[in-house]
């Protein structure tokens, strides 16, 4: 059972450097909403959104708005940036 985690403030993690992804999160409107801009959106857009979504769920976050700017990040980077963003977003 994953403990529910509440995003308390806007937070960012990552960068728009090549192979990275910039994640911005803020309190949601009762659900997970993801906006993605990616250099490989046509090919991998849905996969990237799924990694973001699954990481949020794993971390107990289900009420959040996410804006992501991807520059070709692999899954490990996407997960890491989402986790860092959540950590920053829950700190008071």
């Amino acid at each position, binding site marked *: 059972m994953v403990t529910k985690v509440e995003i308390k403030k806007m937070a960012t993690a*990552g960068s728009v450097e090549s192979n990275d992804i910039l994640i911005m999160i803020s309190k949601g409107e009762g659900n997970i909403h993801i906006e993605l801009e990616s250099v490989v959106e046509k090919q991998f857009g849905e996969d990237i959104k799924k990694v973001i979504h699954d990481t949020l769920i794993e971390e107990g976050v289900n009420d959040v708005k996410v804006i992501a700017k991807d520059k070709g990040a692999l899954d490990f980077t996407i997960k*890491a940036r989402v986790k*860092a963003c959540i950590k920053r977003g829950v700190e008071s």
Partner: protein
Amino acid sequence: MNYRTLLFIPGNNPGMLQSSDILGADGVIIDLEDAVALPEKDAARILVREYLSTFKSKTAKFIRINPLDSPYFYDDLEAIKDLNITGIVLPKAGVESMSKLEEYMNENNLDLDVIPLVETAIGLETALDIVLISDRIIGLFLGAEDLTLDLGAKRTKESKEIEYARSRIIAASKAKGIQAFDTPFTDTDDIEGLKIDTKNAKDLGMTGKTVISPRHVEEINKMFSPTVAEIDYALRVVEGVKAANEKGLGAFSLEGKMIDAPIIKRALNLLRMSGDYKEEYDELLK
């Protein structure tokens, strides 16, 4: 394992992390210290954890944590203690910081190698005391940029100002029978300068070099690799020792030169570096 090159990889750079296995270095040092800006320390730890948990690495992976006198020392250790890595590089190494690291590793049963990075005057003058603290230490690493700052010395390409430091690190390392890693050459475009600097360090007794640019890896690997002629000579020394031992001789001559214990040890060290060492050679000097 003898490391000719240890290449620094910035801990918060996904592109460099995912390429780290194909850059040709014998080992990499994932850096959580100077290469990571203060507001990004948390993100770098998480990125490094995700990277190392995702990829099975072929290259030896060390992590440079932040120093004991920073607020990040124990946070870094907590973040990396369960990762599949080769070891830890301890910056600003001194007797106190090495003792604290050893204490933490004992409490957490960490079976990892340690490379203390000596980059302060007090660290340099207590280098032997540092290496005697732990059997986990596999090499000493000279950090000349911070050291010369601490000494008030001008850092130059000729590196005369670090000759004493190099020799002191080498002596402490050899006294413990571990590796001596030289400071990186910081001009990434000057390959001729790199060759001179590496030769100077190797001639003094350094056994490997740390690297900040992938462009330097191949040249340094080449310079720290024994030549075919050196390997052939070392193997002839070994054969000579075997024959002398059978005859009960202490010293013997090979190709007109007297071969005694220091030359035999040098030959055995070279064979270790080249990968031609055999277990049976352990008996040769007994």
